[in-house]
């Protein structure tokens, strides 16, 4: 027989189940994970789990950040609050000093204490260029452990919004282990015997699964009185949505974070459930934007962009392509979590809504006319317009949406054809600016609306645009506004004021056209575990295990689960 999913780490035996040598002893220990004590999840991992190193920020097994390693704070996207986690709290003690206090009695899973030195160590890892938070040190001056549980951060340029972001996205790592790694190893060590501080320990791994086992010595048990209801979490590696749905329906999966087309039908039938009982079923996770390439005519013309935006009937996309699984985006582009920041006045004045007639009249006013009678307008210079909207092949929902967009735009006189190159080719086009139109949803939910506008306006425009402003919009004033925003503390009146200005700029210039919200896809099978997050519940969290979302609610959702029987 074959050794099956016998561990991707045959060198050492971090746990008895992971390798063939460990098999015999494993039989004695456990043959299978008892169904009633195990939570089966899927939808996050798309390949064999390969790394348990949290530093690179990606590529880790599902739940690595959040279940095994933990951040200082959690962020609740529903309340928009940072909640102390490893930290007991933190505050700005001066214009550019921030003092962080850790909880008492934090321990690593190997029994070592988790203290201020570990936090300093984690922050200082950023001094290595390739560490994802190396940028921190362009505006942070110093991180100093003032006691076992306190750390003082001194900033050269306090960027409040970014700092908050760091606090909950960065996992604190053990100095006593990673301190021994070389700089190169920081990113390339697979860390096959991970020691974290979290609720779960590494248990076993296979080609098609990752298994976590409850950490019964978790600090939060005593500190916060929290206890995980399940002993094991088995995360099933995805191959396709079809398979996920099959597993879900057969009750082999409890939580699926896949986009499962048609799941609305199943929710209506009662076979699975979601956050909302009806449309849009899912919480919103990010806005999907239509990005016009503003280095090309006519997308460089704001009137044209406005007309284009109004020509698209997003409702049709929502109901047809998604069957109501998503909702239409607000013209500000901000996800509904930021509803409180919406400036509805600005939206009423400058925001766009679907209106093909208006789109046509804007075009006509700006000199776009159909001079050759082919049913499509030409530029004021008389150039033909023939735009390609690219969406990665295989992204079926977006492909369907792109078809609708192309159809609608064409109906308004703007010739657009949908094209579906390979995902890699779309990446290339997006980075190099070699496209007319594309759809992008990179800026997801975060602690601050700044993230979205940073994404939309990011400047300076460079040869390769990798993180934002793929449309290569150029406007200094707008960029200054965004930078101001990052330096403003949220909750302050300046913050909302600046935010309104940014929103206005966004709606008038339309560097990106927000269309709908991609959902925080999550569907539950309640046959084994109940009490899943639902609309209207007090303690409802984002029920998502995606990387970065565990500390944004995923963990709390798990904590709240109850066995069905």
């Amino acid at each position, binding site marked *: 027989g074959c050794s099956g999913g016998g561990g991707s780490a045959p060198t050492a035996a971090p746990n008895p189940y992971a390798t063939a040598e460990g098999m015999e002893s494993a039989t004695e220990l456990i043959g299978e994970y008892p169904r009633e004590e195990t939570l089966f999840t899927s939808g996050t991992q798309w390949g064999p789990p390969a790394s348990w190193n949290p530093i690179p920020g990606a590529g880790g097994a599902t739940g690595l950040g959040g279940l095994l390693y933990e951040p200082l704070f959690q962020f609740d996207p529903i309340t928009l609050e940072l909640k102390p986690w490893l930290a007991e709290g933190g505050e700005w003690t001066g214009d550019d000093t921030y003092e962080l206090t850790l909880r008492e009695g934090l321990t690593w899973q190997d029994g070592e204490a988790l203290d201020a030195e570990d936090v300093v160590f984690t922050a200082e890892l950023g001094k290595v260029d390739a560490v994802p938070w190396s940028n921190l040190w362009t505006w942070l001056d110093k991180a100093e452990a003032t006691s076992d549980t306190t750390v003082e951060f001194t900033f050269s340029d306090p960027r409040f919004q970014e700092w908050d972001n760091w606090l909950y996205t960065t996992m604190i790592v053990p100095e006593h282990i990673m301190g021994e790694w070389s700089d190169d190893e920081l990113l390339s060590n697979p860390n096959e015997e991970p020691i974290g501080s979290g609720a779960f320990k590494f248990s076993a791994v296979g080609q098609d699964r990752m298994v976590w086992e409850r950490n019964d010595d978790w600090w939060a048990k005593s500190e916060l009185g929290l206890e995980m209801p399940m002993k094991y979490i088995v995360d099933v590696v995805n191959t396709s949505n*079809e398979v996920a*749905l099959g597993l879900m329906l057969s009750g082999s999966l409890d939580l699926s974070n896949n986009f499962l087309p048609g799941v609305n039908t199943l929710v209506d039938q009662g076979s699975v459930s979601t956050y909302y009982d009806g449309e849009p079923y899912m919480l919103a996770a990010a806005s999907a934007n239509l990005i016009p390439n503003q280095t090309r005519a006519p997308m460089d013309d704001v009137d044209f962009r406005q007309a284009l935006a109004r020509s698209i009937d997003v409702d049709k996309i929502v109901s047809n392509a998604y069957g109501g699984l998503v909702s239409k985006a607000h013209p500000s582009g901000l996800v509904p979590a930021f509803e409180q920041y919406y400036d509805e006045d600005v939206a009423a004045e400058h925001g766009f809504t679907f209106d093909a007639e208006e789109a046509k009249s804007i075009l006509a006013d700006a000199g776009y006319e159909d001079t050759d009678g082919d049913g499509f307008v030409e530029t004021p210079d008389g150039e033909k317009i023939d735009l390609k909207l690219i969406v990665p092949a295989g992204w079926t929902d977006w492909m369907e949406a792109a078809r609708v967009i192309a159809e609608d735009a064409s109906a308004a006189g703007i010739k657009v054809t949908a094209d579906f190159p*390979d995902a890699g080719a779309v990446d290339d086009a997006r980075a190099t600016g070699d496209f007319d139109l594309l759809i992008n949803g990179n800026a997801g939910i975060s602690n601050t609306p700044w993230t979205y506008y940073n994404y939309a306006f990011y400047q300076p425009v460079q040869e390769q645009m990798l993180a934002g402003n793929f449309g290569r919009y150029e406007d200094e004033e707008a960029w200054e506004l965004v930078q101001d925003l990052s330096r403003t503390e949220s909750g302050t009146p300046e913050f909302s004021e600046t935010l309104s200005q940014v929103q206005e700029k966004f709606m008038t210039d339309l560097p990106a056209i927000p269309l709908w919200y991609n959902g925080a896809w999550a569907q539950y099978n309640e046959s084994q575990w109940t009490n899943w997050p639902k609309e209207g519940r007090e303690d409802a969290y984002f029920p998502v295990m995606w990387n970065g979302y565990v500390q944004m609610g995923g963990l709390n959702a798990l904590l709240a689960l109850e066995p069905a029987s």
Partner: protein
Amino acid sequence: MTATQPVSGPGTEATEPGAAGPVAGRKPGGDARETLYFALRNPKVIIGMVVVLGFLLLGLIGPAFLKYAPMDYAGPPMAPPSADFPFGTTTFGQDVFAQFVAGLRSTFLVGVLGGAVSAVIGMTIGFVAGYRGGLIDELLNMLTNVVLVIPGFVVLIIINAYLGVRSVPMQALYIGVFSWPWVARAVRSQTLSLRSRDFIDLARLSGVGVGTILRREVAPNMYSYLFMTFVLLFGGSILTAASLDFIGLGPTNAMSLGLMMNQAVQWSALHLGLWWWFIPPGLGITLIVGSLYIMNVGLDEVFNPKLREM
């Protein structure tokens, strides 16, 4: 690729000994009529042809009679087959029958083009290798082996991914480029046996060049064999294309039967009970390709009298 081989691999070998028959022992000319006579009396050929031509016809003239375009949101979503929508509708309310008919076209196109491309490459290489022999033969053999050894389907995926935008003809072209090796092998051995025939030498004594000899003397002798090869390639291309379409690398700007299956699966058709979306395209392919294969056996019987007597 995927399915070309299972049939054509052994199939090729199978036709080889017989092909020595048609080449060596054929008495054609007056027997063209005889061939036709047997072809028209061979139930396998007839059944195969009727099915394939039926689908072809549907694909060709079908669209003219349809109310909706394949991608139109034509009716209620997820409607089961009815008078209005004989194959029902998709999740989006698209007419599955309209898609099926449109898909038939691309499917035939892929079959014909893919088959033609690999036939042309395989035959050229086979002819040249078999006729020239020597070092050229060795080199071409090696090329054939390399293409054979490299997992063609994987390379196809890569190439398909490489193409920014994929069209049916492009897909066919690339499929063709990777499915010729067994054709080359078979044609080569046929050519080898023909090369030793005296009429080739006589043509050379008439001052005719290599190309002309291959074209006018060698190839025509293998027409029946080449035709059967083409039938196999035709079916193989369709299956390969369907596999590519299925894993999401189908044409991006057209409808095909494989793409229909892909979409049906992507949108969980079977789990949602939309069997009418998933069954017809696969069944269509199966029937077309199956009929081609059956027709091929029939043709084999027609061309090789030994089989005919069975």
